[in-house]
């Protein structure tokens, strides 16, 4: 073993040791901290899977358009199929904490803004997290701008109130929300209470008239119809448009099976699915872990007799940052952006910005101290997990961003922050989780995200062509 390898090994053990120590010491302090540790360790698994599989949702759609590579799109579809299967079991056991989002075309617009942002930023919300853990300074800037833009966007008021349609204001007022959240003041509050909440909350099961907890609803409607069928169709389109031609060309080069026919097409489809072992392994582990996460968190809620971690905080005498309902953001599954908005919201609150008077913080999620925020523990775990696999495979390297990359990172991160608040989540919360739970809102967000990625790629195609032409001008090529 070289000195370099020993150094990396020490760092990996240092990270793991730190997390083990945190879990043990906090549990020793109070048993309720096991709830936070559950989030932490699932975050570690997510981080390791993301980094190992190079799992990035931006890459899925961007590389499809930019370089006709289907690798990541395949990984995501496979991951959603596995996650959806575990979710179906969780549903029939009655242990799902999932609440479907309202289904409306606002999801397409939100996804579109998010999609442009993730291509500019060079990674989606989850991808930027694992890349930050690989040492990318540009991805760290993306995280900061996602967090800040969300925190500012959810509390905008003043002149933006004049942009709110009267119907939103009236509808928001009619919801009878507690006066502390001033639902008729602030653009986002009126967007949420006066517009988004008026769309129906549906799942594929409820559309068929079945319960999400029934066998038919969970497996046939939400999983088969809501995940497997559309994912397989999308993969088929990916095969026909991107992978088929090179597959057949490779066969011709290798002088194998020139007969064609269904057997060859199926072999081509399968070769596309298994093309990247890393991505498939990462996707399967991610999908199963996301499902098991739901079961473990629900189990802990039953053990402690609570529905939300805010109740445990109250029992421990910690009340700062609780929402009006006495709750905090505690999704019970994988999530990215809300907790990023929370930690900056908490900092802003400490700096004197009164932001608990809006729906996002004051009514829904709260702004607990990041040290006791369950979802923030998951994010810390994710960063640590990704750093472990990056160190293990010698891929960790500090990378200072250039001015050009810093501009894309800040612009892209800001668009992702706005898109994720408009869509009530990011590529994970609004797309991956919702689709796997049979909520059609996830596919609507996905349609917008794919369209946004396409526009982002067109821009970068023009940009790189221009820069390369400048570099090649003095050359004889």
């Amino acid at each position, binding site marked *: 073993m070289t000195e370099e390898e020993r150094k990396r090994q020490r760092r990996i053990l240092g990270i793991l040791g730190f997390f083990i120590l945190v879990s043990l010491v906090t549990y020793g302090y109070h048993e309720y901290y096991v709830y936070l540790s559950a989030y932490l360790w699932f975050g570690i698994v997510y981080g390791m899977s993301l980094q190992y599989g190079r799992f990035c949702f931006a*890459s899925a759609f961007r590389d499809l358009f930019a370089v*006709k590579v289907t*690798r990541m799109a395949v990984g995501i579809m496979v991951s959603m199929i596995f996650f959806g299967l575990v979710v179906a079991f969780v549903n029939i056991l009655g242990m799902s904490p999932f609440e479907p989002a309202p289904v409306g075309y606002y999801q397409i617009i939100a996804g579109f803004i998010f999609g442009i942002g993730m291509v500019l930023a060079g*990674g989606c919300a989850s991808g930027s997290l694992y*890349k930050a853990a690989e040492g990318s300074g540009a991805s760290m800037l993306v995280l900061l701008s996602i967090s800040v833009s969300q925190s500012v966007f959810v509390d905008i008021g003043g002149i933006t109130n004049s942009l709110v349609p009267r119907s939103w204001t009236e509808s928001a007022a009619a919801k009878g929300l507690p006066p502390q959240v001033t639902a008729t003041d602030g653009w986002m509050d009126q967007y949420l209470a006066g517009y988004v909440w008026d769309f129906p909350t549906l799942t594929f099961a409820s559309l068929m008239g079945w319960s999400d907890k029934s066998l038919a609803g969970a497996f046939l409607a939400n999983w088969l119809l809501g995940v497997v069928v559309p994912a397989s169709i999308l993969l088929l389109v990916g095969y026909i448009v991107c992978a088929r031609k*090179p597959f057949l060309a490779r066969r011709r080069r290798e002088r194998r099976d020139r007969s064609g026919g269904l057997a060859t097409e199926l072999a081509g489809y399968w070769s596309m699915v298994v093309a990247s072992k890393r991505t498939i392994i990462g996707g399967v582990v991610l999908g199963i872990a996301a499902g098991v996460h739901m079961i473990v968190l629900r189990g802990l809620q039953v053990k402690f007799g609570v529905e939300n971690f805010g109740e445990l905080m109250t029992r421990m005498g910690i009340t700062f940052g609780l929402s009006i309902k006495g709750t905090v953001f505690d999704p019970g599954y994988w999530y990215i952006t809300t907790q990023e908005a929370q930690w900056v919201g908490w900092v802003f609150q400490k700096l004197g910005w009164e932001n608990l008077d809006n729906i996002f913080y004051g009514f829904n999620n709260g702004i607990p101290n990041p040290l006791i925020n369950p979802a923030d523990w998951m994010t810390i775990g994710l960063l640590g997990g990704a750093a472990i696999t990056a160190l293990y495979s010698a891929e960790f*390297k500090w990378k200072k961003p*250039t001015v050009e990359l810093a501009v894309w990172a800040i612009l892209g991160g800001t668009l992702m922050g706005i898109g994720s608040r408009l869509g009530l989540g990011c590529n994970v919360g609004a797309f991956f989780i919702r689709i796997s739970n049979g909520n059609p809102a996830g596919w609507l967000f996905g349609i917008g995200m794919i369209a946004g990625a396409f526009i982002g790629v067109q821009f*970068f195609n023009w940009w790189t062509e221009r820069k390369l032409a400048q570099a090649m001008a003095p050359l004889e090529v």
Partner: protein
Amino acid sequence: MAMKFEKRAEGEFFLDVSGYVCPHPQLYTKKALEKMRGGDRLEVIFDNPSSAESIAAMCDSTGDEIVQKLAEGGKYKWVIRKA
């Protein structure tokens, strides 16, 4: 560091996209290969690990051959021969 693209000899090109995140390394590699002739060689330097997967898949699709793959300290040096 800014992107660097050079012609080192007849049929030998060099592309350095160190410091760049996705999608820049794979996009620059694709566009550089498009400008080259069959049989030309491109040496690509990059340090964004996920671009490795994308460039490998891209070459697999186009038939371009990756003749050398070196990785050290988080930095990749690949040589691609255009089909």
